[in-house]
């Protein structure tokens, strides 16, 4: 069954239900949610014969507001994306008992050692000319987690709704 849902005024999907994990709706999250910020969803993508990639997606309605510090804005995104990666790893290591029931099938089965991770921030309506520095800022902010978890250096992307549509994240 395919699902679609709205986040930050964008309709995400359609995704196969067994490939998409909406963390916020899980019992796992409800149990540990105090003080824990998380992104919108995790999506498993793979072509037959290819190594799966894990897309961790956060959505925003706007670029940093005037007066809002970019490092604060990006710090919060980093915290959410990092928490999601850690929940996935901890779930696969069965450190959370709910994970075995709640993780969609693809998330339970993907090759944890080989899979690529893609940490994606989608900003609705952001003009292209604002995106390059935001991309650099988030890549810098995510530098530590990318290094410590051995992710590819190009695992981080900041895109707008138009690009998200091209990458089949939204309809």
């Amino acid at each position, binding site marked *: 069954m395919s699902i679609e849902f709205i986040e930050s005024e964008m309709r995400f999907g359609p995704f196969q239900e067994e490939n998409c994990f909406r963390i916020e709706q899980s019992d796992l999250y409800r149990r540990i949610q105090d003080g824990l910020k998380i992104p919108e969803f995790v999506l498993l993508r793979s072509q037959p014969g290819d190594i799966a990639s894990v897309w961790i997606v956060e959505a925003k309605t706007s670029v940093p507001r005037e007066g809002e510090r970019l490092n604060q804005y990006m710090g919060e995104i980093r915290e959410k994306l990092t928490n999601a990666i850690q929940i996935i790893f901890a779930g696969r290591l069965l450190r959370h008992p709910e994970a075995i029931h709640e993780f969609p099938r693809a998330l339970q089965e993907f090759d944890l050692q080989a899979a690529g991770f*893609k940490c*994606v921030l989608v900003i609705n309506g952001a003009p*292209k*000319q604002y*995106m*390059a520095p935001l*991309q650099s800022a988030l890549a810098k902010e995510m530098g530590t987690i990318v290094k410590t978890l051995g992710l590819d250096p*190009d*695992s*981080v*992307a*900041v*895109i707008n709704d138009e*690009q998200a549509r091209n*990458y089949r994240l939204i309809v």
Partner: protein
Amino acid sequence: MLNSVELDNFGPLRRIRWSKLSNLNLIIGANSSGKTFLLKALYCTMRTLEEYQRGNEQRSAAEILTDKLYWTFQADKIGDLVTKSADGPLGCKVKVDSREFRYGFGKDTTKNIASLENHVPPRGSNSIFLPPKEVLSLQHIILKSRDVDKDFGFDDTYYDLAKALRLLPTKGKNHAHFAKARESLEDMFGGKVEFDSSANRWQFKKGNQKFQIGSTAEGIKKIAILDTLLGNRYLTKDSIVFIDEPESALHPVAITKLIDIIVSLADSGIQFFIASHSYFVVKALYLAARRQQVSIPVLSSIEDQWITNDLRAGMPENPIIDESIRLYEQEVELALG
């Protein structure tokens, strides 16, 4: 100040119409688009107005302009400056302090500029052209090449600058904005460049240490030029400063600081024309325009056309900006593709 510019068939510049100029003006475009040529054309025009009737100067405006064009563009004859494929003559019309100055000549012109009309009263200020490369370490060579040998090579932008730097610093209280700007310029590198008249050479002083100019970083020497011209009062509130590629030899952090200083000097009355192909320069000026709500007219070369915008209204569409977006898109494609 220079209020507006109209150029026709001026070398690579087929047609330029640029009005509502402000104290900060930006010219952007790819290599060989004619940015430097435009700056030099405006520089020659302004220097003609400034030298005309100054002191005991006897030459007519047309004679001064001919010399200036000849020694700046160093063509065999000034008629060679007319666009090769053009049917009509070269034409230049500017408004300075709301008064008109115009001239024009054809391809066969060697010395006599046939058409020149000047309604601009004599100006006491000095304009200057700051080239991408520093000139402090070449000053003696430039002066000898021009004063003694009368050779082509270093054009009038270099020669005038070398002469302007020869003026000794003036004692007494400088204009407050200029004094502040000089402090900021000297803070950028933690020292200052000074002329040692006993040794007859420039040196960089940092604390108690002195360094030969030859071993001083290129960026420091570039900044020192502006510092020196403010210190010796060659530049005054009505001066026009033409800066070609301020980004050259400067770290992005230094570029941003330099732009901040330029913005503050513009606020005090100096007019700037900056030619650049640096994303950092464009962005820093855009932020200044937005933050201070000041007009920064920008003239962009896009596919052989010159387009005018104002940075106060937003970042202009331009290959420099497009390239930063293209690189970003490649990065996203690498991550998500």
